């Protein structure tokens, strides 16, 4: 098996992604779920950088710029998500995700 650096980077990011996924799946605390999602986002960013760094045309900064935007979006997501957490807390006095199901069909 001949793994290039790019392979390693991808494996790394997949692992990070799955850690985030498992965290988001098994924890019932909304904040932790959010953190898991953030990790998954980071894993995606990692991929962008990796493909940019080891990709065929690294002269174009597209990957970098994409990550910049992605980070900005993640920041927005975190801010809104945590604000939602706080308002959920205000409603049900805890932040257990499985209890926040009032809109179910």
């Amino acid at each position: 098996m001949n793994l290039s650096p790019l392979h390693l980077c991808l494996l790394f990011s997949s692992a990070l992604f799955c850690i985030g996924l498992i965290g988001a799946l098994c924890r019932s605390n909304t904040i932790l779920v959010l953190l898991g999602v953030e990790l998954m986002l980071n894993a995606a960013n990692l991929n962008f950088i990796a493909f940019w760094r080891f990709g065929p045309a690294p002269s174009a900064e597209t990957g970098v710029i994409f990550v910049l935007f992605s980070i900005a979006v993640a920041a927005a997501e975190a801010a809104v998500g945590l604000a939602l957490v706080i308002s959920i807390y205000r409603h049900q006095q805890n932040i257990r995700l499985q209890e926040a199901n009032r809109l179910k069909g």
Partner: protein
Amino acid sequence: MIFVLTIIAFLTLATAAVALALRNLIHSALLLTVSWSGIAAFYLWAGAEFVAFAQILIYVGAISMVVLFAVLLTRRSRDDFAIAPESVGRAVSALIAGGAVLGVLFGAVVSTRLPDPPTSAPVVTVRRLGLQLMSPHAAALLVVGALLTVALLGAVVLAATARRDATEDAG
């Protein structure tokens, strides 16, 4: 340099995993900052200097703060910081699902033939990045600016308490 990468990756993965498994939320958040810094280090290693510092500035400087505030604001007493253990069933199902994804991803990555990396690391100057952002990606930049503003306002509106206590102005 693969060696450096390996260390970084290991550190990052470990802290992330531990952070998501910890019972103390504060510790989780703090550990995650380490993980994020690791990712930043990876960026630095890959030559994306600007992104690395942006990652630190935003994740370590801002998001972690917000998370910590959120944790502090959603607990009644100090002892609540540690949260009750999760149900075993869910943990198992999560592990199975996550494991399946991991397996699939690993399989996919390993079985894919990727092009050989270029010999030298690409150089990206901040100036070029700025020019790229301002000319071809200017629209996206504006949209992101608007998004951040809206997110800021939205977060404030969501998190602010309704003002019921005008009478308390007696001072």
